[in-house]
């Protein structure tokens, strides 16, 4: 049972019967209304920003190479997948610049895959913060997403440098600027995923065990490493693949970076609909659980 709202007037009346002024009192620990919630979230922005900045800057300080790992990790990832899928399995199916294809896919997918794998644990890992302050808990997924975006700035720089330097050099074009709006949509998508899984993972901690599998499945099923669409001819499969926002996402990055073209409207619509839809659904779902996140879980 939650703190019941209908007993509040009774308490206020009994206090006033004793001659005490209780008009300025209000219930605590109850989920605020949406407008209030959003404005509290907005007031929290300074903390979220400063906290994210410092955490990104200090997260690798225990490693000898420090923040060089922000560059090295995605590099190693891309090198490994290129070795396996490009050289050993030879899965490129007629993709011209397969190195760039894999680098773009792997590096840009990392951001979404982090949201998927870390989303369910986000409330648990910030337990100390939740138990110490009252603030809109939605600030936690947002903060994680901002940290992720900060790291992605470095990742994107590494990625662009690599596709220019590696053979079959891609050269900078005007369409490269399109990665900014595409990444903005990707961040919204990530945030929606975080909100959704944060509450699911809080209620059902076991979900986080399955998340690495789901993340892997999405990676292979979304054309991150090899052109999945060229393995299926069936129209139903094609429709499923094309409705997948992650497939559209990596596809759009590749069109903008490798083909020097503007991604087709259908891609924008699919990605945009998923991003905005998931964000709204995820945020509402998360907000409804707001008052429960401080409870002791055993």
């Amino acid at each position, binding site marked *: 049972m939650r703190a019941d709202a209908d007993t509040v007037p009774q308490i206020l009346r009994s206090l006033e019967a004793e001659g005490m002024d209780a008009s*300025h009192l209000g219930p605590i620990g109850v989920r605020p209304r949406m407008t209030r919630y959003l404005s509290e979230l907005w007031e929290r922005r300074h903390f979220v920003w400063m*906290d994210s900045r410092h955490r990104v800057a200090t997260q690798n300080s225990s490693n000898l190479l420090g923040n060089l790992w922000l560059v090295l990790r995605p590099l190693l990832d891309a090198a490994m997948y290129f070795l396996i899928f490009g050289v050993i399995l030879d899965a490129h199916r007629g993709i011209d610049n397969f190195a760039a294809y894999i680098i773009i896919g792997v590096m840009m997918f990392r951001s979404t895959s982090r949201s998927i794998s870390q989303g369910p644990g986000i409330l648990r890992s910030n337990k100390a913060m939740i138990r*110490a302050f009252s603030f809109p808990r939605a600030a936690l997924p947002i903060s994680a997403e901002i940290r992720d975006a900060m790291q992605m700035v470095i990742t994107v720089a590494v990625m662009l440098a690599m596709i220019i330097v590696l053979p079959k050099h891609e050269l900078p074009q005007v369409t490269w600027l399109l990665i900014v709006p595409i990444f903005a949509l990707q961040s919204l998508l990530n945030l929606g995923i975080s909100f959704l899984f944060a509450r699911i993972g809080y209620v059902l901690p076991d979900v986080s065990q399955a998340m690495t599998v789901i993340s892997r499945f999405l990676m292979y099923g979304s054309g991150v490493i090899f052109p999945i669409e060229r393995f299926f001819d069936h129209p139903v499969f094609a429709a499923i693949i094309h409705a997948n926002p992650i497939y559209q996402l990596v596809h759009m990055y590749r069109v903008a970076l490798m083909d020097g073209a503007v991604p087709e409207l259908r891609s924008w619509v699919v990605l945009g609909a998923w991003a905005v839809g998931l964000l709204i659904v995820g945020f509402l779902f998360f907000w409804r659980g707001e*008052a429960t996140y401080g409870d002791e879980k055993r």
Partner: protein
Amino acid sequence: MATRSAEATAAAESTSPDEQGERWVAPEHSPLTVVARDLKVRYTVKRTNRTRGSGALSRLRRTQKISVGAVRGVSFTARSGEFIGIIGRNGSGKSTLLRTLAGLEAPSSGTVLTSANPSLLGVNAALLPELTGAQNVKLGALAIGLTPEQADAAFDGVVELSALGDAIDLPMRTYSSGMAARLKFAISLAASPEILMIDEALSTGDAAFMERSKRAMDELLERAGTVFLVSHAAQTIENMCSRAIWMERGQVILDGDAVEVARKYRWFAHNLAQGDTSKANGLLLDARREGWEQTEDRRQFERGSNELHWTPRHARKPPRGHRGGRRSDTTAP
């Protein structure tokens, strides 16, 4: 006798004139800040039976889910200017009560009403050990809800209160626990919260810091704030608070003047430490009875005369193990 002299010391300490003079006294009539009504917090936990039975069935039944009441029906009202100590043994529900009052944990039932958002002294959760003290002051101030401008304005005061000197520019992971405690206390006061809640935070500071923090809190109280302090050290409560709430097994035993309640608690805890369990239980029952009488007086006032014939539970049947004459033990010098 050892017990007698300990009691005498306790009484002498609490009545010494300089301490009495310094202790904060709450104003008689001031606005309400926190109202708690019948708060209950229950946890469901897995219990494992240690005694091993034979057979597969009893082995299967070894773990069972049981419900544990951490807070079991707590009601009180707090006014601005009050410095309330919550005292009790480990596991008596003090910290859970505080978290519930702060709105960080939802009660299983019951309601908390407050005049402002309480600030629980837990700013360390937001601080990053890799950053310097000074950077953490900024970060912590933002975490407790100050704007960047307010955080800048409060900076010098926080550094001064923390008395860290040059150490303020060192990474926080190099701090001793006392230094870290001082810093987080100083940051928490920077927001000048209307309702401040402190959980055992002051025990790590040294004597000089205790004095300074007491002054800072007195200022807060003069600005019509309310401070809650959770501690199992009766001395701290006696020295600093105006009112004390004694908790035992999730219930309020006694709620009243800090010196009186703390002294009774101390005498109880002392007997318990000496192994005199039956005497300690007697003292506990006396205190509980006194607490009951207070509550019943208030309830009858609230309900009016139609329920005056109602007999308090403790008056119907004397509690087991209770004998007359215990009462004098608690007050005799």
